[in-house]
């Protein structure tokens, strides 16, 4: 009898109660995760009924059409700046000014920006001799630009022809303070890591955000492509020091009562990290920023007290439970499994993985249907790898990031920001 048959017969021989005892991790952290959206609907509806929460509403109607500014802030982006601006000028909606900030670039960024301004492609440009980080650059541009809607883009991204027009559609609702577009990796074919991220972005952004926007739970307006209402930015004092400034400003806008929205039809294309090393590096940074911002800077919204906001507490708790606790609990679960079942633990893990694989494949099919993109057959063969990769690689990356941030303040060493800013960032 092979190990597999042995494992199978072991699993089939369990009663319902003992199955729960074996698969508690999956039952606690994996299944509710997919069930949560439904839970969220109920909770949000409940919260709305219970509290008469004050919402900010932009003055309506706007007599004049909304003025739009697009901000391009970059450090040493000489290679991509011009193509970025030119692609923005190809947009179906083109009545916007482009403001470029060269943030302490040592290459030709400033000269190219100046040329684009002279050539009429961009509206204004600022050259900073000292690098101050993305937030300060964006803040400078926000103060100088004249738009009612301010769109922040990344230099190394490119945009679907209708992206800006569709993104602006979100602001018809005067309670929307910020909106982001969908992000699609354009280099999914370059490596396995990139392909896994293509699947991940599809599930977590294209479908994930589409789902949560229905419940008003968009908690991060992607830095690569987001628009903001000027009144909203003025109210929160625009961007704070990064990293994770996109998550930060979203949380602050939400805390002040602005609605944040996701526009699936506004598509932005980006290059995702193509090697495992850069991917891990990026995710360590993201996860460190996420715990720092959620549970240090913005903990007040989920704690009892004057700043408590139920809708914010919900997503904070959701993230805490499924991302933080779920990640941390995985290690003791494996240990417990092996301690309790000895060599039977392996078939259990395989069974879990098979279940997840089935689940991921179903999700992929649903995602393909929901987004209308030919994503299913293209990615099906990569789903087993993706499942394993998320369970056994990315989960440990998260674990490492949380530990590093919570106990060793890892994000302070993150060279994504200039040292002078990191050194005195408030926590």
């Amino acid at each position, binding site marked *: 009898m092979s190990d597999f048959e042995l494992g199978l017969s072991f699993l089939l021989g369990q009663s319902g109660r003992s199955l729960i005892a074996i698969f508690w991790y999956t039952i606690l952290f994996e299944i509710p995760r997919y069930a949560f959206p439904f839970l969220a609907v109920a909770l949000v509806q409940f919260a709305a009924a219970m509290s008469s929460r004050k919402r900010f509403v932009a003055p309506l109607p706007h007599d004049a059409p909304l003025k739009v500014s697009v901000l391009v802030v970059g450090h040493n982006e000489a290679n991509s700046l011009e193509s970025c601006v030119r692609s923005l000028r190809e947009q179906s909606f083109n009545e916007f000014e482009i403001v470029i900030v060269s943030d*302490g670039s040592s290459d030709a960024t*400033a000269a190219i*920006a*100046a040329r684009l*301004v*002279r050539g009429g492609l961009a*509206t*204004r*440009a*600022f*050259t*900073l*001799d*000292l*690098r*101050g*980080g993305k*937030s*300060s*650059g964006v*803040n*400078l541009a926000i*103060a*100088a630009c004249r738009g009612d809607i301010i769109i922040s883009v990344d230099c190394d991204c490119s945009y679907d022809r209708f992206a800006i027009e569709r993104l602006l559609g979100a602001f018809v609702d005067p309670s929307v303070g910020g909106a982001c577009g969908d992000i699609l990796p354009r280099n999914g074919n370059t490596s396995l890591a990139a392909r896994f991220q293509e699947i991940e972005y599809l599930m977590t952004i294209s479908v994930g955000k589409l789902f949560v926007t229905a419940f008003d739970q968009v908690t991060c307006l992607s830095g690569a492509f987001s628009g903001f209402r000027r009144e909203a930015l003025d109210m929160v*004092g*625009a*961007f*704070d*020091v*990064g990293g994770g*400034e996109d998550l930060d400003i979203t949380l602050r806008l939400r805390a002040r009562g602005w609605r944040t929205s996701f526009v699936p039809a506004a598509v932005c294309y980006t290059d995702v990290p193509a090697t495992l090393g850069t991917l891990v590096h990026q995710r360590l940074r993201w996860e460190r920023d996420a715990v720092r911002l959620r549970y240090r800077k913005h903990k007040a919204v989920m704690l009892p007290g004057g700043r408590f906001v139920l809708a914010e507490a919900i997503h904070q708790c959701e993230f805490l439970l499924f991302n933080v606790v779920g990640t941390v609990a995985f290690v003791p679960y494996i240990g417990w499994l092996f301690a309790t079942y000895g060599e039977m633990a392996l078939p259990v893990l395989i069974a879990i993985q098979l279940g997840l694989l089935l689940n991921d494949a179903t999700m992929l099919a649903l995602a393909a249907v929901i987004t209308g993109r030919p994503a299913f057959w293209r990615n099906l063969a990569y789903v087993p790898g993706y499942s394993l990769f998320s369970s056994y690689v990315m989960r440990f990356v998260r674990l490492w990031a949380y530990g590093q941030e919570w106990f060793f303040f890892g994000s302070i060493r993150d060279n994504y920001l200039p040292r*002078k*800013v990191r*050194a*005195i*960032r*408030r926590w």
Partner: protein
Amino acid sequence: MRERILLVDDDTLAQDLLKSVLQTRGYVVDTAEDGFAAVRMLRNERYDLALIDYHMPDLDGFASARLLRDVSSGDDGPKLVAVTADNNALSVRPGADTVFDAILPKVVAPQPLISSIEQLLKNPKRDRAIEAAAASWRERGLSGRPKVVAFPVPTREQALALDICFDRATLATADMIVLLDASALETISTWRARAGDFLLPVVDLSGTLATSCDAAFGINDPLSWNAAAEVIGKFSARRALLGRESQRAVDLDTRLMAYLYVADRALCPIGDPASKLFIRYPGFFPANELGAVTERLTGRGLLRRTFVDRFHSCGSCHAHRLNVREECLYCRSPQLSEVSLIHHFSCAALKPEDAFRSGKNLICPKCRQHLRHYGSDYDKPGTTLQCGSCGASNSQPLVGFSCQDCGAHTDGEAASTRDVYSFELTNEAIARLTAQNSIEFSPRDLPPALEWELKSLSRDYHEAATAIAKISYLKREHVFKTRGTAAFLKLRELFIENLRNVIADLGSVVATEEDDYLLLKETDPEELSRLAPSLFKQCEALLAESIGPEFTLIDISGRLAS
């Protein structure tokens, strides 16, 4: 010097009679019908003597004379001579002998009148000055005082001074033109271009136009006497070298070249803040036509040009008087000021320093924190330009031009430029200018490509040794109709190709859009007419269809021969 006499008489018949008598004696005579008119004329012109009829209505001769005495100043005033039939009546009038320098009887024979006038006009002091001036000119190699024409019409005072140094004459006999002030520039330039003399030196007497003129003259500056004498001598000598045709030229092209030859100078631009182009060319040729003329002559190899400078010009009025300034990108206001930016590290605020200033303190406008420690709390990552007019800020100013003449605004990058050259005559131009026989300067109406080819052939051979025939195609219309335009053009191209191969380096074929030309080196037209038919036949034989090539000889001056 010819003295000027003013006749004041209400009797026009008597006036005309007297005028003709005096004019035959070489006086310049003006007439006035009464005392008031005389006063008006005296204000504008200097007269040596006024002959006043005593019996006039309204204002009689005596009153008129008093008036004239009043308006003329001191010694410079004209001698006043009364003419009367009633000599006694006037003589007894008190004061008559002091107002009038002489009283002459009305009916006088010409001879006594003339002698009386000559007697009266004698001015020993002035005559000595005139003689001294003539001697000075003779020392400098002239035969006496130079004959001049003055522009604009001199005032009385100017005329006084002019008449001592120069002999005023007409254009036909003048040695030079003297320029009294800038108001005459336009007059001079129109007749330089169109009529009048273009080969006389122009000498500046105003003291401000020397660079445009051929010389400058100041009565107190002996060196300027030298310069004036020298320029008169040079112009006169070089005028004699010019061919007759060139001397009588009526077209601007030839006039310009002849002037440059006679003046023996290059046409170099001169800085001139008063000109809207900032430059001016000497010689008083009309500035608006000079560009086209010089370009044409350069193209024909008659002028050689040298780059001097490049100007930006106004898009609206083409003036070069532009104010260059750094401007706001949005409102084009030059009211830009550079402001420092402050970056507050802990909240990412990045704004102009003004937003942080509060007396001596720096307070963050976003988080109200005091900034105390440069480098730890904040730094100044750069500067930006702020527009005082529209408030916009931007790191990049625009360069713009504002026209000081018409006020139009031009963006720096859109502004057109104009190159300014200096020009000098080529040897070919000099040869043509000095040729005593027929010369041909007017454009030959040859296509530029043909001119060019002719010029390149004549580097080795004299131009005249090249025979030219214009080729036309008799069956052109026929082929158009039967086979289409493209087919004809193809046949023509093949024909030309064949022709080129056949004549090889004996000459060349110039194909222009309109016509084709055959050039044969070291060939006279007769030889060309003999050779052409067989050449054409040979070249056409290879074509699929005949296009009927025919030729017309062209002589070198551009006229079709036959």
